[in-house]
């Protein structure tokens, strides 16, 4: 009985769901819950960041001054545009436009990789300047503030590193979704995976929207002579 019933079903309807609507709602709700977990994950390190920012405002300003605001700004722009192309990919999937989906997913992937490439350039520059905490540290422009700036840079590397890891996972997921879109698997009836991918991508972008001002743009509070 069940085999016959299944034969009439959509090929991507999993056996334990009643219909595609239930499957779609479950997958989007699952991603929302997962993102809640992610907020707490980044929230933990952000909390520690704020504790020390309050204790060491001067070192935090000096640390932020070591960042390349231009590159950070370009990266912010790149990610915002990538969120647009991601949203357009979802829209194209809903409308069943295969070409549009594929193009938008490729663009999103390219923007994601651009972000990572620029981040690598920044990391390399920091490494050269001796701003990698630990044995490789040799930055000493402000000798009195070295330990605290090192603390700032610890947060910089941890937070941007975890964000970059999320970007890399995101690009990997994009490739998978792209392959499925290429094969024409998504359409008005079934586009859940593209939408769930989009939720994740937007979230990772939003994390950066917080990280950018927190790590690059906080000179204002302190004017350092």
């Amino acid at each position, binding site marked *: 009985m069940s085999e016959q019933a299944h034969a009439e079903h959509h090929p991507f309807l999993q056996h334990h769901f009643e219909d595609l609507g239930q499957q779609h709602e479950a997958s989007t709700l699952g991603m929302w819950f997962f993102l809640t977990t*992610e907020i*707490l994950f980044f929230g*933990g390190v952000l909390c520690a960041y704020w504790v020390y920012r309050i204790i060491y405002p001067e070192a935090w300003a000096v640390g932020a001054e070591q960042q390349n605001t231009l590159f950070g700004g370009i990266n912010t722009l790149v990610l915002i545009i990538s969120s647009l192309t991601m949203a357009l990919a979802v829209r194209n999937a809903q409308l069943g436009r295969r070409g549009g989906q594929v193009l938008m997913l490729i663009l999103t992937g390219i923007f994601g990789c651009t972000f990572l490439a620029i981040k690598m350039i920044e990391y390399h520059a920091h490494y050269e300047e001796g701003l990698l905490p630990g044995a490789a540290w040799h930055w000493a422009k402000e000798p009195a503030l070295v330990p605290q700036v090192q*603390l700032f840079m610890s947060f910089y590397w941890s937070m941007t590193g975890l964000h970059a890891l999320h970007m890399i996972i995101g690009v990997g997921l994009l490739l998978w979704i792209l392959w499925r879109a290429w094969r024409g698997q998504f359409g008005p009836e079934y586009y859940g995976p593209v939408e769930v991918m989009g939720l994740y991508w937007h979230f990772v972008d939003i994390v950066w929207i917080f990280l950018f001002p927190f790590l690059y743009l906080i000179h204002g509070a302190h004017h350092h002579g």
Partner: protein
Amino acid sequence: MTTATLHDVRFIEPEKTRNYINHDFGVLSWLLTRDHKRIAILYLFSVTIMFMLGGFFATMMRIELLTPEGDVLTSDTYNKFFTLHGVVMVFFFLIPVIPAVLGNFILPIMLGAKDLAFPRINLLSWYVYMAAAVIGLYVIIVGGVDTGWTFYTPFSTQYSNTHVFGTTFAGFLAGFSSILTGLNFMVTIHRMRAPGLTWYRLPLFVWAMYATSIVQLLATPVLAITLVMLMFERAFGVGIFDPALGGDPVLYQHMFWFYSHPAVYIMILPAMGVASEVVAAFTRKKIFGYKFVAFSSLAIAFLGFLVWAHHLFVAGISVYSALIFAFLSYFVAVPSAIKVFNWTATLYKASVSWQTPMLYIMGFIGLFTIGGVTGLFLAALGLDVHVTDTYFVVAHFHYVMVGGVVMAYLAGIHYWWPKITGRMYPEWWARLAALLVFVGFNLTFLPQFVLGYLGMPRRYHAYAPEFQVLNVMSSAGASILAVGYALPLVYLIWSLKGSRKAGPNPWGAAGLEWATSSPPPKENFHETPVVTWDAYDYPQFLKAMGETQNV
């Protein structure tokens, strides 16, 4: 049990004997399964092995503590053993045990669903758990870890020369496994309920699992990021928790307990859920104050996030913040007490069947109450300073975690054993084991309250001679407890072949899991059930079951 409940089962076709166990054969059909019931069995094996491992470390500690001198284990080995006992029991047994074994098996069936919302993620959670366990075992083999299960900095980051990195990484991974389980449960409860199964018709076990899942989703990531920072610090020498580099070790304690206090509720909330099911089944009554019990689970989940700093009373936090956290900690007692009162009120004038699950739950209610009330002692700022880091604390949390969680787990595994395996367990042996566990537990941990109050500190392998009598009592109790735990292992395995068949509803209980065959078919129900009864509404449930027979 009436004949009506034995035979008039609505959603099964009696002639079909295919079930989730004999549907497929072979090792791969288990290792690659996406069936929530089989994944529950995989977890059952894993957590049982981890329980025995954690029990081994406990046994060695109790043997060492028979005499005041540190003669069996060196102090270094003792440090490692209490650490490994804590790590194994907390991260690999207590946190996953009820959700991943009983919850995995029963929750989708209680909802009338064919499976959890994300079966592959469910399997992934087991593999992540196993990866964490393998790393944990590797750490044990290559030399262990000695920081205590709390990994307090700066000892864990600067001074310990044991395998802190591997252990914290294992804890990090185990946390992910727990998040995946919680996420799956939450989505399943929201989106996969059978027609007619409204929120207020859900069994209280489901409410408890829902509250547990909230804590898993919101607290575990904070532990994850805290352990990541600890690992960065250990590996690269960054100074987030290192005072020499401007960091603050107390921040670590705040962040650790922001997870680890709510983690206590990840352990106890499912146990409370089991208690509600068992009390309803063995009194054949509705749980008194259903909505109060349901919402008290959510209240515990919420309040659990506001009390973490009561672990830091002597860590140098401000006296005002300590006062506030002491005050907030008292609040958790309110929803916990609501549950205890409601279970008791359900028992009032009930005709109670004293089968093994009910015996365990009676033990649970009493022991959890002792654990909870001594928790109030510890939340009181002045008294806490007196007994901090003594055996009083050890006794308190063992009353909650062993007297509470393990007793409820044993109740649950006996209660649902007929459903899981299709066989009854041997009642006489099971009652004997329940008695041994209860007596052994109290003999082990009651003297520890006294020891702690008299000033015996925890985490030392030697102690002052005047504490010996109480320590010998405790070790003697532990040996009785060990027999009590070993018995079910033997008779439950024996019951798979030697015991009588259970039938779909051996307890005459009300609930969807008793409306399908034992063991259930792969899809749980041959047709999607329609729920027309409130939770534990026996007349309505039996009526719904009976109607089908007439069809």
